[in-house]
């Protein structure tokens, strides 16, 4: 497969270089919200949506800042856009699904500090993707994030029922699960050459 083709970019972002399991981005929500499948999936979708907005905005910001030669402001501009997008998502969720809003709690505003989202903006800039490639990349990254958080939630729901030594309960167990998942995802490294 050609490294610049859209299908490769999507697969690369979603599976081969999965944002959570291979690049370690967005670990906080993964550890925080992946307790139950019911909250994990909406959280994944909300994050993926913000990723898409951030990616579109970053593309625009790069053009504008490049025109005025103000590249050193790019980081501040990205994070401001992400913070506003998260605010938007928060308002939408609060309006349409108050129970979900309560279930996600503090982790909804914390999407702002989800490095996966800023990561999309930064990586697509450093790879110099064009518009279509950027959108594909952010969609792939979002799909990968949803995949990872849902997989983790499914595993953790099972582990909750298992007899785990009290020392390993909680974060240590989640990290070990993430490690095993990450091992499994390494197997995709050969995909696409």
């Amino acid at each position: 497969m050609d490294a610049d083709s859209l299908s490769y970019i999507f697969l690369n972002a979603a599976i081969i270089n999965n944002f959570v399991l291979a690049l370690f981005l967005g670990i906080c929500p993964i550890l925080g919200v992946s307790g139950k499948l019911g909250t994990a999936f909406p959280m994944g979708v909300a994050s993926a949506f913000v990723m898409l907005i951030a990616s579109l905005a970053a593309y625009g910001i790069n053009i504008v800042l490049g025109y005025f030669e103000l590249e050193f402001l790019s980081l501040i501009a990205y994070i401001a856009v992400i913070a506003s997008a998260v605010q938007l998502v928060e308002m939408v969720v609060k309006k349409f699904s108050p129970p979900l809003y309560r279930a996600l709690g503090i982790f909804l505003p914390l999407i702002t500090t989800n490095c996966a989202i800023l990561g999309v903006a930064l990586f697509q800039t450093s790879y110099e993707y064009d518009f279509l490639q950027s959108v594909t990349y952010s969609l792939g990254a979002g799909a990968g994030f949803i995949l990872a958080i849902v997989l983790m939630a499914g595993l953790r729901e099972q582990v909750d029922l298992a007899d785990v030594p009290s020392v390993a309960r909680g974060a240590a167990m989640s990290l070990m699960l993430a490690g095993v998942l990450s091992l499994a995802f390494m197997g995709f490294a050969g995909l696409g050459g």
Partner: protein
Amino acid sequence: MAAKREQEPITMDTFLSGIWRENPVFVMLLGMCPVLAVTNTTENALAMGLATTFVLVCSTGLVSILRDFIPKEVRIASYIVIIASFVTVVDYAIQAISLDIYNALGAFIQLIVANCMILGRAEAFASRKPLGKTLIDALGVGAGFTLALLCLGTVRELLGAGEILGIQVFADSFEPWVIMLLPPGGFFVLAGWLLLFAWIKERQNKRAAAGKEATADGR
């Protein structure tokens, strides 16, 4: 009320609690992304820890100075912009000091912005406390963060390459565990450290409980 707050003494405990009792990584589980991503060598871990500490101290200091001027409604956005400015400074500074480290850390320097530990500290501590106390607290938390990064970095480098800071430790016959340098290694080593701390804590609790029972029996 404000005057009363100012009088709280700055003790050694303000500094130490960030390192042990409220360690951002091992206890609060904040800022995990850089912890896992850049700790494949000791050198990277140290650079990342120092960079993060610098941003933490500067931004919480500024937040503390401005705490009476920032309107409550837009505080998160203001904090983020302050943090982003200092991260930009660090980004250019590291690029000027050492291009090798800059390339090794890659996008993770800029991703310090999204480190929830810094925003958490600004929101929970700096926005309410005077400058001096905030700075000491930030230094403590930063030291705890750097220490945690070093914990991971040394173990991963030692097992993954048989070296520490590029100096060979094990004999040539040692077969490096390459997996430790790859992503799964980061998860496993951090899980291992968490297990160790949980075990120590549990033993302490058991001892304390046993001690209490003994004194209760004595009476």
